[in-house]
């Protein structure tokens, strides 16, 4: 374990020393130290299963450590109960904060302590006035009359933070707060977090998104296999070093080896328009080519992906696959005509959690595995599935394991297996690295690479600009429903900064 930490100003809000936790058969945490000071934003990063969530659960009092001491707010605990943690000022804000969604912001803030009028009835004027004032003191301006479900996700997160602060929280644990957010909202959220930091609030910031760590965190603690491998000032780190610390081996930033030659067009989209979603979309993807489509939330890229797969209406315009008109109106026809789609929400659209890995992989090719009386030929199925499990490096105790018990990275690979097994001509991937750890990400890139060398035309719809640059032959940027710019691989203009600016509608010199 390395430590390379300057003396920090201020008092430690949290001092955890030598925390260990063993689950049957698993060493979740080994001798973990963590120190968070007043007014500090402390990043906590690591792969899935590195021990982040166990550590957080211990700090929240949901899990008792086997060894170690926790010092919170000057008091020392051998173990801590949820109510003690709350009283000591620890608050946890998950990615999707749970509040009373159908009630107004004001009601959520003042729940349980609503100002009452003369008859013992709630004094609504006072409710709205007081809640607005309270939020104002934190520099947060929300419409308190709105129901919480009507807020943007970032606003909900900010409201959850504010609520925690009204409850006298001094250390706020944020769990992947930005994953579902568009860039503009991330900026707003970060602004809010920084303003609270200036007021002395401490944060533990959990993220898979390593770039953000540099943007918002003062210090970073990296966990790997239940141990702290480093605690550093963010300024002493760079992307390559942090990636290496997280992954545990020398991982260079991924660079796709194969590049598409000038070959036959596989996917052609001609003047595709669906009012309110996207307009006049034109692009082609060649055999073995990987293109990226990027843009802010609501730019039309996501709608385009879903529409091409037949999950939504496609509008007017023409689509050709291998020169033939593509007419699919639903996923079934899309798969038949050689187009497969990886949804961003793999739990909702990709997997059936209670069914075994084997069945999940073959859902889309079931028709090919049927024998007499539509009975599935299971031995043949097993052979096919094993081939893909081996090929994609999926770790599972057996083919019969329920998918819901696999890790996030392995689940994502199962979805890939399910698509690859259909042998598609076109593969559309929507945020393929969403919420998975660094190691799994590299595996996913390798899989994309391999599929492209097999001649599959691949379209990646993503906001992970750096990843797109390293993987794609071309990147199209969409803005307000239109393709506004195109970036070639290796061109000097193809930088994250330029692409991000294009996503926000900038770059007036745009001439495609």
């Amino acid at each position, binding site marked *: 374990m390395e430590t390379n930490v300057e003396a920090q100003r201020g008092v430690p809000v949290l001092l955890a020393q030598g925390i260990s936790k063993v689950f049957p058969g698993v060493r979740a945490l080994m001798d973990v130290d963590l120190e968070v000071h007043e007014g500090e934003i402390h990043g906590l990063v690591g792969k899935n299963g590195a021990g982040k969530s166990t550590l957080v659960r211990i700090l929240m009092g949901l899990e008792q450590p086997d060894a170690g001491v926790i010092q919170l707010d000057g008091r020392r605990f051998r173990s801590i109960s949820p109510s003690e943690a709350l009283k000591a000022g620890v608050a946890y804000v998950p990615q999707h904060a749970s509040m009373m969604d159908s009630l107004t912001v004001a009601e959520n803030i003042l729940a349980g302590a609503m100002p009452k009028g003369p008859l013992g009835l709630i004094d609504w004027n006072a409710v709205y006035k007081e809640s607005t004032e309270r939020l104002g003191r934190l520099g947060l301006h929300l419409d308190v009359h709105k129901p919480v479900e009507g807020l943007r996700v970032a606003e909900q997160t900010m409201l959850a933070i504010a609520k925690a602060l009204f409850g006298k929280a001094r250390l706020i644990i944020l769990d992947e707060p930005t994953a579902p957010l568009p860039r503009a909202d991330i900026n707003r959220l970060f602004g809010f977090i920084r303003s609270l930091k200036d007021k002395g609030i401490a944060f533990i910031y959990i993220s898979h998104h390593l770039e953000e760590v540099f943007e918002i965190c003062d210090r970073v603690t990296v966990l790997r296999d239940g141990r702290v491998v480093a605690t550093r000032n963010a300024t002493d780190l760079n992307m390559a070093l942090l990636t290496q610390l997280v992954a545990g081996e020398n991982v260079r930033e991924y660079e796709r080896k194969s590049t598409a030659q000038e070959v036959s067009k596989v996917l052609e989209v001609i003047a595709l328009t669906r009012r309110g979603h996207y307009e006049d979309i034109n692009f082609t993807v060649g055999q073995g080519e990987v293109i990226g489509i990027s843009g802010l939330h609501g730019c039309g890229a996501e709608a385009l992906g879903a529409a091409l797969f037949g999950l939504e209406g496609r509008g007017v315009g023409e689509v050709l696959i291998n020169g033939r008109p593509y007419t699919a109106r639903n996923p079934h026809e899309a798969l038949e005509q050689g187009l497969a789609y990886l949804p961003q929400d793999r739990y909702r659209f990709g*997997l059936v959690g209670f069914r075994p890995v084997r069945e999940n992989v073959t859902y889309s090719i079931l028709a090919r595995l049927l024998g007499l009386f*539509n009975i599935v030929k299971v031995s043949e199925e097993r052979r096919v599935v094993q081939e893909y499990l081996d090929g994609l490096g999926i770790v599972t105790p057996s083919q019969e394991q329920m998918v819901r018990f696999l890790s996030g990275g392995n689940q994502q690979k199962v979805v890939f297996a399910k698509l690859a097994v259909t042998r598609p001509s076109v593969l559309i991937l929507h945020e393929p690295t969403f919420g998975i750890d660094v190691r799994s990400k590299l595996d996913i890139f390798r899989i994309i690479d391999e599929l492209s060398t097999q001649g599959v035309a691949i379209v990646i719809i993503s906001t992970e600009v750096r990843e797109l640059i390293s993987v794609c032959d071309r990147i199209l940027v969409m803005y307000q429903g239109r393709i506004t710019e195109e970036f070639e691989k290796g061109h000097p203009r193809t930088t994250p900064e330029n692409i991000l600016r294009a996503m926000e509608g900038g770059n007036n010199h745009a001439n495609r």
Partner: protein
Amino acid sequence: MRTGRTDWVQFILNRFIWFIILGVFLFFAVRAKGFLTGLNMINILLHGSVLGLVTIGQAICLFSGNFDLSAEGTVSLVTVLAGWLMVPSGWWEGGGGWELHPFITIPLLLLVGAGAGWLNGFMITRLGMNNFIVTLAMQLVLRGIGLFICKGFNISDLPPLFRWLGNGRIGPVPVQIIFTGLAFVGFHLFLGHSSFGRQLYAVGGNKDAARASGFNPERTITTAYIISGVLAAIAGWMLLGRVGESVSAVLGTGLTLETVAAAVIGGVALKGGYGSIGNAFAGVVLLSVVDNGLNVMEVDPFWVNGIRGFIILVALLVEAQKFRYKPKVAQA
């Protein structure tokens, strides 16, 4: 990469129902005089055969994530309709005067069951109506049609050929036991190995993912209801054969709750996508054993429902633990 030894908690949770059945069975065998006789064993199975058929249909609908509360309506309509189509009496005695041959009547009855099932499926998948309410209303509608047809009369004197399913024997064994037994085995294997079974579980487990995998959830759910409707029609045919006369559209009353209970007791998940026909069978066996045992022990009938309710609650408790329990799987 398992933690080494067998996961006993998982093992027992998955077979908990059979341990309960064994316990209950042994209890009655010791305490209830006359329980452990061949005749009584046949009685238990007889009790479970109509219930079993309808429960298979119920379980198939539950796998798809939907209730079928209409099945007992189908059972009752079919019992009335069969008499109306076959017996010579005129409308003033509740008959239709058709005097149809059983070989014509039976396909018509199955068609009625299939039609009711299709209508359920259509309303739920195409019109987007709630499955619970749709099938509950259908139960009333079907029973209502039955009452309208028979005008409250009882119809007897059914052709022996028709009654064979519910009344006949092959050797010492009643036909209905053999039939239901075969249905359980057949559907268990069919759902476990067929394309339809795959789709059914996928749709029940995650409809959106099933659709994105190229399946057609609407068709799958409708098919589930059609199967359930046909099985209910067969159950009605069986029940009428056993009873011998249609008792003004009241046959089958109370079946709905029993079928849902049997499926859930056996371990079929109400939220869909989880369970097997074997589970449903276990539930039917337990309910039948308990009913029979309490009967043989001459327990005050006022207690019987309370005891059944208690058993259902215990089964649900175990069920809840099963979904909470997570085996330790090494993270990759």
